[in-house]
């Protein structure tokens, strides 16, 4: 059984669908990337999974953690899952820590809550975890306030806090977006290392394909609330099957090959979620668009290993996506 399986997840805010029938699963020990541009619904998917969306949102479908349904579960059940079995690290390390409490208190809290530990024991464990995420002088850090730490250090603290209760799954929502490039690499390497050491699964939400290629075994691509492509990272990056993935890849700079005059960009804008086109959401921007694309929402087809939501490419004319494949990894 998969660690976490999401089936036909649909999220609506006041009638506007932001996540539209997303299904995927995460296996134990796996690292999975959820890729998409801003507004594609990737964060909404994660928030919906953990029951963090405001009460005004309508959520349909199912999210099962080892068979146990999380959608619509009572608060008490969720409190036992969140932090204990599924932990999450947010995008902005600046505001994800309580400015009024010391690092030590915020970390100890998780252990007191989930493992019923006493304060002194919890602090000792927190110190060990800070050491594991390679924060220097962990003992002193416990007594410090968030504003005394740098951004990278705070993100490490958040990762350490998330891992304290030994969760099975860590969801990282753009964990490095707010950090410097060098710190980014360190934090990602740390995540990799901890994942292997602790045997946890990682769901990495990002818009950075570079991050995906180095750190995730499998990737999902979302566009306008729908899953458009899924598969092993290496295969998807080497030969994307959905025109959107292909266009994304084409628009990133490469170290190899001739230097293009300008980087190709995807023409147009992602659709407004309240006025999505009737057929394929990517059709207005797609170079390989067919008349049928504008009428019918493409279904996700699969060959067992990969999945893609584009009938045009399925016909075998990959050359007609209008975008050359490039070796992204």
């Amino acid at each position, binding site marked *: 059984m998969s660690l976490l399986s999401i089936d036909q997840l649909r999220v609506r805010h006041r009638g506007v669908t932001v996540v539209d029938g997303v299904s995927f699963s995460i296996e134990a020990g796996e690292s999975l990337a959820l890729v998409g541009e801003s507004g594609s619904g990737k964060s909404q998917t994660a928030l919906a999974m*953990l029951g*963090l969306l405001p009460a005004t949102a309508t959520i349909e479908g199912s999210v099962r953690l080892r068979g146990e349904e999380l959608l619509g579960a009572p*608060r008490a059940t*969720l*409190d*036992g*899952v*969140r*932090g*204990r079995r599924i*932990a*999450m690290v*947010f995008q*902005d390390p*600046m*505001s*994800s*820590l*309580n*400015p*009024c*409490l010391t690092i030590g208190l915020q970390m100890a*809290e*998780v252990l007191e*809550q*989930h493992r019923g530990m006493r304060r002194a024991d919890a602090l000792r464990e927190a110190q060990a975890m800070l050491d594991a995420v390679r924060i220097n002088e962990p003992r002193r850090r416990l007594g410090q306030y968030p*504003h005394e730490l740098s951004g990278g250090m705070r993100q490490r603290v*958040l990762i350490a*806090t*998330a891992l304290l*209760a030994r969760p099975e799954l860590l969801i990282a929502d753009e964990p490095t977006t707010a950090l410097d490039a060098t710190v980014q690499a360190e934090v990602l390497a740390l995540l990799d290392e901890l994942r292997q050491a602790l045997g946890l699964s990682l769901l990495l939400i990002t818009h950075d394909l570079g991050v995906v290629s180095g750190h995730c075994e499998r990737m999902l691509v979302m566009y306008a609330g729908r899953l458009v492509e899924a598969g092993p990272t290496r295969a998807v990056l080497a030969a994307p099957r959905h025109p959107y993935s292909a266009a994304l890849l084409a628009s990133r700079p490469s170290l190899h090959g001739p230097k293009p005059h300008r980087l190709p960009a995807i023409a147009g804008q992602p659709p407004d979620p309240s006025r999505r086109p009737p057929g394929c959401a990517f059709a207005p921007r797609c170079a390989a668009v067919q008349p049928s694309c504008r009428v019918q929402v493409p279904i996700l087809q699969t060959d067992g290993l990969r999945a893609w939501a584009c009938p045009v490419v399925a016909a075998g004319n990959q050359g007609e996506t209008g975008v050359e494949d490039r070796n992204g990894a």
Partner: protein
Amino acid sequence: MKAGAFGQPAVAVPAMVLLLIVLLAAIGPWLAPQPFDAIDFDADWAAAPSLAHPFGTDDLGRDLFARVCVGGRLSLAVGLVSTLVSLAIGVLWGAVAGWFGGRIDALLMRLVDVLYALPFMFFVILLMVLFGRHWLLIFVAIGAVSWLDMARIVRGQTLALRRQPFIDAAIVSGLGSTAILVRHVLPNLGGVVIVCATLTIPQAILVESFLSFLGLGIQEPATSWGALVNDGARAIDATPWGLIFPAGFLATTLLAFNRLGDALRAALDVPGR
């Protein structure tokens, strides 16, 4: 919260002034030449300040220094009570309303609206009619209204805090709703609460002075700054010291509290990043 706030002159100066005033109100009556309600038959009635009576005497020959100190006790006590009520009821009321939201919020805040809408003077007069004139009623009346502002301000602050990512982070780490309210929301209200409290104190002192001025407050021979100012204002031509001293203490105290509140707001502003 940083202990270093009191090292800053903007905070330390008004705090020291207030400390001196409180000390004077506490031990002043023992230093005075005679009890606050005793009459000095040797001195002139309404005597000007002198060595025997540093603040002079009032029109009955009572020592004004002793009366200012005793009056200060009542005025400061009113300020203290209003603060305690604001802290005990106002903070909890506002935080619960803002945090749990929905129907709880609507119910709690409509109750605050109703109390707000009640005409204050009518309320005080009603109390006096029902229970007779008693100094305790001043505390009841002021206590009943002083927490309303606090509740509203705290609710607003809680609503803003609820959207902070670290609250989401706390929810994701599996903390229960009440635990998050106590551990994450309340500490973050500290700055606002302290500032609001320091502004509530002078307001309550003013309300008491106002009630005493109207004759609805403290009764002779007991007194408060407001009552003393009232007496002094009536004889301002003949005995200006009767107005100057209590009014000076009242104004200094109010100013000090306001400055303290302002300085604390700046000093306790928790750095977000």
